[in-house]
């Protein structure tokens, strides 16, 4: 039994080892420095600058969180303080189901509805903005449901105290409940950020995938994860190694965020 349980426990280490092993030759040949100083990403011409993809991933993630955080908090507050129980149950169920919708379905919707809509406003449509909106929808359930759980964990006595002081609904929610729940809300947001960085298919389908540091939200971008899917099929040698390195960079970023969340509660309990 214990031997079987060791497999799930060690799997994440094995995965890191395999990605590191696949990127080792490229790291030795190209070196870490060139991955950020080469003239561009032209794998056939031996130029491997990852920065445009890294910038694309970070920009899409930041914009998506900027959209999803207020919406997610709004949903959580609605669930906790405004919606009558039947509406609350329905909304919670919808959010839980939305979390299970395949990313390729979000991508298909983005491609067939959102991208043409943005294109009518500003060409080409497939852009940082389209990616951020799709991604915001994808991480919203995470943010809303973790924030709702954090609000639910605020002791009832604290809320009764706020009511006894005659605080308005605004004062109770904004002044008392949200600050008391901020640790849980932050943890949920960091989890959403990790999910956003790693998101692949939904973004691949709507971002336009041009290798460039975006100048505006209407510019097409390519994310790190999308880059791997797009080029893995035909990459060989140093190119394949460079893709593995971009996977390693992505994995390092995501694991760093997750460890941040993992550390937080232990600090809270002293």
């Amino acid at each position: 039994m214990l031997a079987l349980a060791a497999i799930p426990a060690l799997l994440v280490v094995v995965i890191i080892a395999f990605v590191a092993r696949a990127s080792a030759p490229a790291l030795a040949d190209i070196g870490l420095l060139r991955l950020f100083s080469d003239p561009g990403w032209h794998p056939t011409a031996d130029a491997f600058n990852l920065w445009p993809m890294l910038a694309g991933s970070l920009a899409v993630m930041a914009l998506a969180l900027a959209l999803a955080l207020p919406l997610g908090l709004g949903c959580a507050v609605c669930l906790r303080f405004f919606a009558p129980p039947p509406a609350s149950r329905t909304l919670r169920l919808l959010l839980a189901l939305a979390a299970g919708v395949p990313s390729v379905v979000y991508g298909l919707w983005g491609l067939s509805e959102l991208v043409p809509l943005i294109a009518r406003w500003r060409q080409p449509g497939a852009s940082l903005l389209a990616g951020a909106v799709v991604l915001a929808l994808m991480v919203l359930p995470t943010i809303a449901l973790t924030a709702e759980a954090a609000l639910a964990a605020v002791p009832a006595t604290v809320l009764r105290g706020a009511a006894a002081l005659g605080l308005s609904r605004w004062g109770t929610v904004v002044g008392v409940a949200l600050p008391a729940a901020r640790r849980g809300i932050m943890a949920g947001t960091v989890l959403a950020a990790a999910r956003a960085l790693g998101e692949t298919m939904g973004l691949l389908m709507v971002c336009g995938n041009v290798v460039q540091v975006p100048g505006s939200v209407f510019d097409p971008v390519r994310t790190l994860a999308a880059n791997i899917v797009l080029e893995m099929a035909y990459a060989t040698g140093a190119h394949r190694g460079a893709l593995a390195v971009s996977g390693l960079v992505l994995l390092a970023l995501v694991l760093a965020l997750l460890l941040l969340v993992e550390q937080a509660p232990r600090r809270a309990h002293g």
Partner: protein
Amino acid sequence: MADLAPVRRGPARADWHSVVLAALAWGAAAVVVGALGWIVVDLLGAGARRLSWQFLTTAPQRSGRSGGIAPMLVSTALILATCLAVAVPLAIAAAAVLAVPVSSGAGRARRLRIGLDLLAGVPSIIFGLFGAELFCRVLGLGFSILSGGLTLACMALPIMVRVLAAGLAAAAGEHGAGAAALGLSRTTTLLRLLLPAAAPAFAAALALGVGRALAETAALIFTSGYVDRMPGSLLDSGRALSVHIYDLAMNVPGGDASAHATALVLMALVLAVDGLSAWLLLRRRPWPAGA
């Protein structure tokens, strides 16, 4: 818990701040519900016409522009079966370690929990890279349903373990002392007593694992591959439904209607299994919340 908190809709002064707050909260909920509704309308509007019994039971023609999705349904089912066959024993073992800790095993349980939490956050394309490297290359399975199913088993583990461990912990709280008093061994207690008692959690864990696996695309492209023929064995490459949607939408001009129809089928499957797990977990709470 929620039922105990009378402050939930308790007396509160209605000032304009609070009205704004209510508007923002309801507005956010409306935006989310509206966006989800938009997705469903888009899928139905563009895909419902293509749906028919024939669509489910025939092979694709002209790269999927016409014809059906029968080979993808079969491939998906085989990938899922492989995934569950590998993931279920591992998930039971891991959940047992988490739920029924022995005095010497606290550190072990903590390491396992952290390992699973990190595993749950690993991006799907990384699972794809890992699966392509380990299963396809090192183990020599190539692009095959077996490679895809094994990769998905790794991905589905964390959610399955989490749900199953919660169920087992509740069952252990109820029956654990009795089993110990009878002198039952740990394995007997687990397999004959706790697991049957936690049957709803077990079913929910299965459904959530299936839901997670059904939704996956990026990890399958480089493991189970693209081939859209009917698979003859587990060592054949097989195209999953999600990969089919991606391919139709991105690489096949004129494949839009088929992509939407396939997405409808996939959504129906995902909603069915996720709905089933939600029903199983919410129907009654035999174990304390947050266990």
